């Protein structure tokens, strides 16, 4: 596309519905329908000649929306209104100085002269797959109850929160609901914040739904233009969808900071159809949602116990003073060093969470004096995968980390500690997730969880409360053996 060919149409959303009812005899391009149905793509992302795009637009088969709203500065694609995410630049395309959104920059820069293009022609219809589920596994009692409710929510286009403790086996809980959707020709999306979850989930679901076309979408994936009936996407990739799904399943949302959460909520609302079911999966819902559950204002179901029927390890709080000051002197508070020494002596693997990379590296230097094979890993560590594998193979006795490791990472027999558990970054849900790393396997269902802190926080207390509550409920419902 060259500058002379620039095709900028000032079309606003209000004319969308008017133009929907017009002429349906236009011989539209089936590939365009496939690529743009339920999507919102930038004009430059479209693999079609401009003339063809123009014709479809003129016949009311495409909807154009401005990418950035100036009145109340906001990004139409990601919903950002926070001014700190916008910047200005002199645009060579339109010749004006204009705003662009930095929040969703990785999806292709969207500025004031950008157009988001969606399909406005006839719907793309999906197949009704008879008996789509090929699975012979068995659900636990807790899973069974949740599974049934998910299927009902899918049938009734309702909203449901599935509150399942770490290790409950929540993926299997979705099977019946997805099967229900596929057999009635509905389009489904499973959205998760992390690429590794997409990569883990896609083959797993493909195996049990062999007749269904599945698209796995993440940054750099190749299925970008697939119009699949079942889409598994990172929440980022949801930003390319617009009124696409009849069933929207959102996984693991609560371990993430508020700013991501806001974008996520916006993306979910944009991507689902106005009439659709919305299912949230979480090990630890945020405060506001917990309260709504208690007050009966939110439909929810809990799976309070793990598949292996043992209770969740309850975190122990240990005050260890001004640890940052100690660290700056090259020391670790004695009680936490002893903790590490004891694990090394007993040959028990451990996972230690630190609030910041700098603190983690300092701790690493100190711990390595005890054992040089101790390692650290953070979210952007290029060797992250290799280190996780080494940890799983028991080549690393203690692994320090600033991030919740991949969901697939269930190291069988570990103790877990947090240093500086009072840090803001450790929200209630993050702490519940962290505690959930211990005692995952049926073979080693126990493991200790220790929060080393310099002052208890509301988040720490909340996390412990949540875990105790789940154990109590699990016992009451007969889902825990002891």
């Amino acid at each position, binding site marked *: *596309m*060259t*500058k002379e060919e*620039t095709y900028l149409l000032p079309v606003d959303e209000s004319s969308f519905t008017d133009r929907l009812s017009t002429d349906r005899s236009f011989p539209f391009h089936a590939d365009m329908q496939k690529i743009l149905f339920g999507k919102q793509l930038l004009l*430059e992302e479209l693999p079609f000649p401009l003339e063809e795009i123009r014709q479809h637009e003129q016949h009311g088969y495409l909807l154009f929306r401005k990418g950035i709203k100036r009145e109340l500065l906001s990004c139409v694609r990601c919903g950002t209104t926070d001014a*700190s*995410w916008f*910047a*200005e*630049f*002199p*645009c*060579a*395309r339109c010749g004006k100085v204009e705003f*662009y959104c*930095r929040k969703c*920059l*990785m999806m292709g*820069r969207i*500025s004031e002269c950008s157009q988001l293009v969606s399909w406005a022609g006839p719907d793309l219809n999906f197949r009704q797959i008879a008996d789509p589920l090929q699975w012979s596994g068995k659900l636990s009692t807790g899973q069974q109850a949740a599974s049934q409710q998910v299927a009902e929510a899918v049938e009734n286009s309702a909203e449901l929160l599935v509150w399942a403790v770490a290790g409950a086996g929540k993926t299997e809980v979705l099977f019946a609901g997805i099967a229900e959707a596929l057999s009635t020709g509905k389009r489904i999306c499973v959205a998760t914040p992390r690429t590794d979850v997409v990569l883990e989930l896609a083959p797993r679901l493909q195996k049990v739904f062999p007749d269904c076309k599945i698209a796995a979408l993440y940054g750099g994936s190749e299925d970008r233009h697939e119009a699949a009936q079942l889409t598994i996407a990172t929440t980022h990739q949801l930003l390319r969808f617009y009124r696409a799904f009849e069933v929207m399943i959102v996984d693991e949302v609560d371990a993430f900071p508020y700013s991501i959460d806001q974008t996520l909520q916006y993306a979910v609302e944009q991507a689902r159809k106005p009439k659709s079911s919305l299912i949230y999966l979480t090990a630890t819902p945020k405060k506001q949602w917990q309260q709504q559950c208690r007050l009966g204002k939110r439909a929810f179901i809990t799976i309070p116990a793990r598949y292996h029927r043992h209770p969740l390890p309850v975190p122990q709080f240990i005050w260890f003073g001004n640890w940052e000051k100690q660290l700056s002197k090259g020391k670790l508070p004695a009680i936490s060093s002893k903790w590490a020494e004891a694990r090394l002596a007993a040959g028990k693997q451990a996972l230690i969470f630190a609030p910041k990379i*700098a603190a983690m590296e300092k701790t690493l230097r100190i711990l390595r004096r005890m054992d040089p094979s101790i390692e650290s890993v953070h979210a952007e560590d290029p060797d992250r995968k290799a280190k996780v594998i080494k940890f799983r193979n028991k080549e690393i006795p203690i692994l320090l980390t600033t991030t919740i490791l991949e969901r697939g990472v269930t190291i069988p027999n570990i103790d877990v500690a947090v240093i500086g558990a009072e840090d803001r970054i450790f929200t209630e849900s993050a702490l519940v997730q962290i505690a959930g790393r211990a005692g995952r396997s049926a073979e080693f269902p126990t493991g200790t969880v220790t929060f080393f802190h310099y002052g208890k926080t509301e988040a720490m207390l909340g996390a412990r409360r949540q875990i105790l509550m789940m154990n109590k409920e699990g016992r009451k419902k007969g889902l825990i053996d002891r």
Partner: protein
Amino acid sequence: MKDYCLICHQEIKANFSWTTLFREEKAAKICGDCSDNFSPITGEICEICGRPFAFLEAEYKLEKRCNDCARWEEDEQWRGTLDQNRSLYRYTDFTKEVIAKFKFRGDYVLAEIFAEDVQLALQAFHYDYLVPIPLSGERLYERGFNQAEALIVTAGFEPTQLLSRVHSEKQSKKSRSERIHHPQVFEFTTDLQLNSKTILLVDDIYTTGSTLRQAAKILKRNGAAKVYSFTLAR
């Protein structure tokens, strides 16, 4: 208003100390962690291309020049084309990532990170015209801006357009041998008289030095006396 790091979007906390107290403090564009990740080029460098010798094995240099430059200077066709290049940072993975986000993702505002350093660096040169390496029309449309021009403007200087990219169609009309031996990438597109003027070319990175020499050659052929270049990284 709060300041956020342009790279990691962390809030930048005001860092009061005795040294900053007495100095006029400009609003920081990036946080300390990100700032530490850049590796400024210091110490001994190649007298022509500005490559730091500290990271170069002895066999890759010849007295005050790196082997690459020595080779350029041996070639009659290219000898003395580019008088001197200077760059700010080493092209580390971190710098590479930031520059990629700046030019390929089109994050224009990242130019502000470098504004102060670029300003100081450009002031160290004596020149008549500050010339950004141009993009093709197609690239310019794709990216929405020329990254070299963005660096110049953001640092508070005025760019002069003397060159443009030769259209690829024009290129393909030439014979094969012509293209290989005279791969004309740029053409001189101005009425300005360059008689005995000094030009300072600006680009984001110096990789092989070929692009800058191509541009320098055209400029000298059109009367420039000296051609220097400045890049963000190398």
